[in-house]
């Protein structure tokens, strides 16, 4: 369980994270979505005690990270796949991590096996690792202490399709084992496939914290209506507009209706006796929901909000 209470981070005049209050629950994959510079990485760094919050707190199982004495047994995290000494072999990197927390060396080989890095890849110095191998090494490090809480910052970056599928399955199985899994991503489609719960932020503010199905359902659905009878279509358009829906002609025999549902358009067409050739919902994807949620927050993005590139 990760608990954020009024978590705030300011860099000078810029508010990178703005009073976030979120509970990340165990047993499911929680996606952490937001445009670049929204404050995702900063939030994760504060959870790990790397960045000091300006206000509020981030707790893991009720305690601040800096108080933990065996943190790798409590939280595993992949922050930056590039964060390995250029001359140090991947295995030595993991071995140093393991020793710091009293984890036996054989566990290093176990996690290397889990992430699919063989002995030769693990013996290569950090500078020669591809981004994909770096991601796998980072995930191996997160798994070292068999922790109940896992955090991954953009874990599928640089992975090939096989790797992406593997990460997806890994997240799922970790959550199914009852662990807390908190994954950030800017890939909305990826979240749609892996996440159960979504936490969406924009410009450091919480925009949504809800089950993924609710987020999608809450987005505006456009309804496409096609009819061979122009007169009937015009009548339908008038009646729909009267109920508060927005109607736009999409062609001589077609309408795009927003602000209503497919069911209500269908009922109305039946009532008016208008013959329909098509009645379909459009754009009910996480992608669209995300765009709508973050529309205001990306508008002003582009300034240094202190996330990502550090």
């Amino acid at each position: 369980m990760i608990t954020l209470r009024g978590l705030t981070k300011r860099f000078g005049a810029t508010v990178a994270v703005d009073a976030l209050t979120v509970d990340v629950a165990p047993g499911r994959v929680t996606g952490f979505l937001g445009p670049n510079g929204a404050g995702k990485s900063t939030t994760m760094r504060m959870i790990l005690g790397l960045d000091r919050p300006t206000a509020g707190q981030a707790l893991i199982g009720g305690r601040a990270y800096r108080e933990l004495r065996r943190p790798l047994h409590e939280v595993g995290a992949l922050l930056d796949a590039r964060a390995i000494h250029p001359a140090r072999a991947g295995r030595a990197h993991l071995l140093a991590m393991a020793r710091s927390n009293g984890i036996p060396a054989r566990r290093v080989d176990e996690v290397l096996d889990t992430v699919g890095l063989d002995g030769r890849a693990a013996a290569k110095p950090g500078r020669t690792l591809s981004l994909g191998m770096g991601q796998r090494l980072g995930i191996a490090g997160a798994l070292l202490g068999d922790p109940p809480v896992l955090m991954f910052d953009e874990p599928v970056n640089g992975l090939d399709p096989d790797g992406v599928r593997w990460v997806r399955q890994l997240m799922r199985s970790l959550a199914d084992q009852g662990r807390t899994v908190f994954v950030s991503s800017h890939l909305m489609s990826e979240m749609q496939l892996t996440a159960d719960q979504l936490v969406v932020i924009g410009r450091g503010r919480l925009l949504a914290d809800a089950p993924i199905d609710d987020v999608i359902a809450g987005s505006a659905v456009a309804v496409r209506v096609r009819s061979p009878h122009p007169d009937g279509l015009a009548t339908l358009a008038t009646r729909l507009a009267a109920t508060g829906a927005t109607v736009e002609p999409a062609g001589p025999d077609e309408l795009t209706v927003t602000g209503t549902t497919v069911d209500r358009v269908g009922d109305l067409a039946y009532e008016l006796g208008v013959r329909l050739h098509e009645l379909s919902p459009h754009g009910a994807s996480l992608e669209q929901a995300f765009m709508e949620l973050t529309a205001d927050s990306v508008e002003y993005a582009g300034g240094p909000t202190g996330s990502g590139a550090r």
Partner: protein
Amino acid sequence: MSTSTLPDTRPAPAAFRGAVAAEWTKLFSVRTTWWTALAGLLLMAASAGQLAIYAANDNTNDDPTDDRGIVAVGSVLIDSVELTQYAVLALGLLAITAEFTSGTIRTTLQCTPSRGRVLLAKAVVAGTVTFALGLLLGGVGALIARPVLGEWGRAPAGDTIADIVALATYLALVSVLALGLGAALRSAVLTLTVLFATLMIVPLSLQEPDIAVLNRIADVFPGVAGTHFLAGDTEPYPGAVGLLLLAGWAGAALLLGRAALRRRDA
């Protein structure tokens, strides 16, 4: 989850032992460590050889005012350290600045969130390794200087061993000083510049006009204090005071580094 209900009861000494083991693993898993040790060895061999040649030449040339008489091997070693230390202190320096450059400081602090514990573990490892390296350097320097000095040299076993141990202690403390400064300044180049100024440039400039009050100020600097300790001086203060001054500088640098690590974002 069995681990989720496990209380965080690991005692502090175990956490510290873990941090030391991790630092040890990190230090010896990069080739830089060995190159640094080799550079130190070569510098020591060259310095000790050269200084021994100078001493022998001074005694054998025609100018009687140059005559240094019989020179102790230990004094050649102590003079050789002035240059050699810059290779050796890199071990302490890089232990922290390389972490900032590569971003591994975040991994390190994830594994050991206590900043003081991380820095102390690094100090123990860097101090131990540079002490051992210092013993090796002293031995090699003595083996080179003794035959070069020939009839003009003397190397009583007890004194020479004491000099070598003192030299190793000096190097260990200077590398801890470098570590602490590196944690505060983060950049290797900046830290090396500050070290060069503190160990050599500033005290030399202070001593240059030979004004009593400026000399007294220079005596407090770590490099000068270390020299008084190594030389076993009685003036301006006993050698032991020099050792304490140098240790104080190293301790202060660690405290400064810890404060910086605690306060600043990683």
